[in-house]
């Protein structure tokens, strides 16, 4: 059954609509990237953290968090705020790792003091967060993390190398998975919130992507001292805490507060528009039945994804509680990838032209989007790992590893 708004929720929805209608910010001088994790300039960062701050002030961010931690103290408001922001097409929320991963983890595993300390500046985008899970030797196999945390009185000494840390150059905090013991793969992990801005021993270096763009970073820890009160939950519970984080990360693929699924439908509309404007023979690429068949295949997948999200909320039409939610990430990211590949096929010769070429179709967005799509099918659990999870948790097949 679809959730119906309660009277309070209906009122809040109305508030969101009105406020978003009245407060839509003017676009920035330079076009924003597609996603928060691609933001790489101070200008964009300033623009976007201002916007999130305003949204927070208006009660559209953190609406379901307790008031004492800077939230609105409501129930079921977050979903409404996200829906309305998505509909309004306002800019995405910049503190995406904070909102999607750090905040729920802190709320679930943090001490009272930690919740009071970290949540409000996070929601208000006063402090940006990043994630320190992946390492050069620990990609899909996160639990093999080797970054070490050695106890030293009331402190911990951190040494190691984290990679794929989006937003690290702008971040004050990192959620950090580290190894306090080599005796056990999983139980040897402990979870911290680590300060990384202006911290002695921390080096943040941008990683250059296949696209030539930045956005990802690597973060090196050399004898970095952090206080034991920055530990989240017990020593040895790091893997459990990380699972909380990852559960929310997967949900985040549905686009918590950041436009979300809209990206897919826009991509498909863009594909149809590209085909219709690209000359081919005496007509356009849209007149090529083979290309059109491919475009319609992805259009059907895009609509299927939308209807699956809708069905996911109809209790009577769900076969297994995790079956639809766990599909979102792999379905969306592979769809985006395939759509971009078809865009390149439509562009043909002109797919060679890149983002600074004045003749590039859609400003080079198709080759750019195609390359970027691999970030999505690799990060946050590769498509291969996602399929393991689906087979094992939903269909009950034997573990593959």
């Amino acid at each position, binding site marked *: *059954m*679809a*959730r119906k708004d309660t009277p309070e929720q209906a009122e809040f929805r109305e508030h969101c609509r009105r406020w978003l209608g009245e407060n839509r910010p003017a676009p920035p001088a330079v076009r924003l990237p597609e996603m928060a994790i691609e933001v790489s300039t101070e200008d964009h960062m300033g623009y976007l953290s201002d916007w999130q701050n305003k949204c927070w002030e208006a009660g559209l961010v953190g609406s379901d968090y307790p008031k004492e931690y800077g939230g609105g103290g409501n129930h079921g408001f977050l979903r409404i705020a996200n829906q309305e922001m998505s509909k309004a097409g306002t800019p995405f929320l910049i503190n995406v790792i904070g909102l999607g991963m750090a905040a729920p983890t802190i709320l679930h595993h943090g001490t009272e003091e930690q919740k009071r300390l970290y949540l409000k500046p996070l929601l208000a985008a006063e402090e940006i967060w990043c994630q320190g899970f992946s390492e050069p030797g620990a990609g899909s196999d996160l639990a093999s993390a080797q970054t070490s945390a050695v106890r030293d009185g009331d402190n911990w000494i951190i040494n190691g190398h984290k990679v794929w840390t989006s937003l690290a150059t702008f971040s004050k905090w990192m959620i950090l998975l580290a190894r306090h013991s080599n005796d056990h793969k999983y139980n040897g992990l402990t979870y911290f919130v680590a300060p990384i801005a202006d911290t002695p021993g921390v080096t943040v270096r941008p990683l250059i992507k296949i696209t030539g763009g930045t956005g990802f970073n690597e973060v090196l820890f050399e004898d970095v001292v952090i206080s034991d009160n920055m530990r989240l939950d017990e020593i040895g519970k790091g893997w459990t805490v990380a699972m909380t984080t990852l559960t929310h990360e997967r949900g985040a693929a549905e686009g918590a507060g950041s436009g979300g699924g809209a990206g897919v439908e826009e991509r498909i509309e863009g594909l*149809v528009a590209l085909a219709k404007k690209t000359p081919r023979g005496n007509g356009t690429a849209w007149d090529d*039945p083979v290309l*059109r*068949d491919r475009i*319609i*295949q992805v*259009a*059907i*997948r895009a*609509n*299927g*994804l939308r*209807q*699956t999200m*809708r*069905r996911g*909320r*109809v209790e*009577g*039409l769900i*076969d297994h509680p995790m*079956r*639809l939610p766990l*599909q979102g990430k*792999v*379905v969306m990211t592979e769809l985006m990838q395939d759509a971009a590949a078809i865009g390149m096929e439509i562009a043909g010769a002109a797919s060679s032209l890149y983002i600074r070429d004045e003749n590039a179709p859609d400003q080079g967005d198709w080759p750019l989007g195609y390359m970027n799509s691999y970030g999505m099918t690799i990060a946050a659990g590769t498509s*291969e790992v996602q*399929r*393991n999870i*689906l*087979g*094992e948790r*939903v*269909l*009950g*097949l*034997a*573990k*593959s590893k």
Partner: protein
Amino acid sequence: MSQPKDFGFGEDEKLLRDSARKFLSDTLPVDKLRKLVAGDHVEAYESAVQPLGYDENLWKQIVELGWTTLAIPEEAGGAGMKVVAVAAIAEEAGRAALPSPLIPTLIATAVLCEAKSAAASSALGRIAAGEAASIAITNAQGSWEPTDTDVVASQSGNETTLSGTASFVQDARKVSFFVVSAKNSSGIGLYVVDADAPGVTIRPDQIVDLTRDQARVEFKDVVIAADKVVATDGLEALRRATPSMLVIVAADLCGAAEWQLQTTAEYAKVRTQFDHPLGFFQAVKHPIVNAMIDIDRAKSLTYAAACEIDSEQATAEVAARMAKSAASDAAAFICSRSVQLHGGIGFTWECDVHIYFKRQKHNQMLYGDGIYQRSKLGEML
């Protein structure tokens, strides 16, 4: 009309669906189905006329349960339920690979409902009273275009007569009347013809699918009484009924595909090779997961399309063709994997998977496969 978020699938629909599922799993478990349709393989494929392989008693119970009258308006003696409820029942029929004239009767109902004439109401009344029906609108080439029919209706004074042959008529040997499309002076007319009317000959096809029958139905100067002329200009009714036809078959495809998925996953859990259950191997696990994703897409699109029909959206045909395309392709994939991943046993007559495989290949093509639906969509987008 705006669309309900829950596809209009509320408590009533859920109750109906759950009871249908229980009824079919109780009365037609797969071992009984196998005996019914595949008990004797020689008879199934080698006898001059394929056996019907269906349980008339079970069919009577289904009629009594009211599944055939779901979509008939209350004024014609039916339950007047939504297409989403019809889809739910069709999905259960697919899940059970039910041999019966249920699907064709639901489709004939959709056509008759759109015709809105006295003859149509009268025919709906017959269905409401327990008769089964099937549409006869396809030509010898198997064209899915409603303009293509090999039957001609001639008018001579007040008398209408039909001549020609309708091909690919579904479950023709299980129904008591046909809704026939025929070329007439106004275009395409729709006529009710009793299966046992003089001049009607049913010529059964030998088909692959064991869970239904199919025939060419010949009409030789078949006289049509005035009260059986459903429409002299019936093309619009056929077109308006198309989304429902597609959704019903798509739902059947989804239900059967879900059975194929679960059965294959189950086999991958219990069958051990190389010291591991098959599902341990990603060459087995990942295709099954891909099949699940395909099936979920098809299921979501099918309910969305049913809901669009119910809420009278202008885009219902787009939605329904998307659903049929997704469902046909999902079925083709799980058909292929259900046999392959069952290995040697999957290749045998004794394994149940072939019964569904064959029904699905039939459904995949029926009223147009994925390529066909997408070519129609290309004209609409």
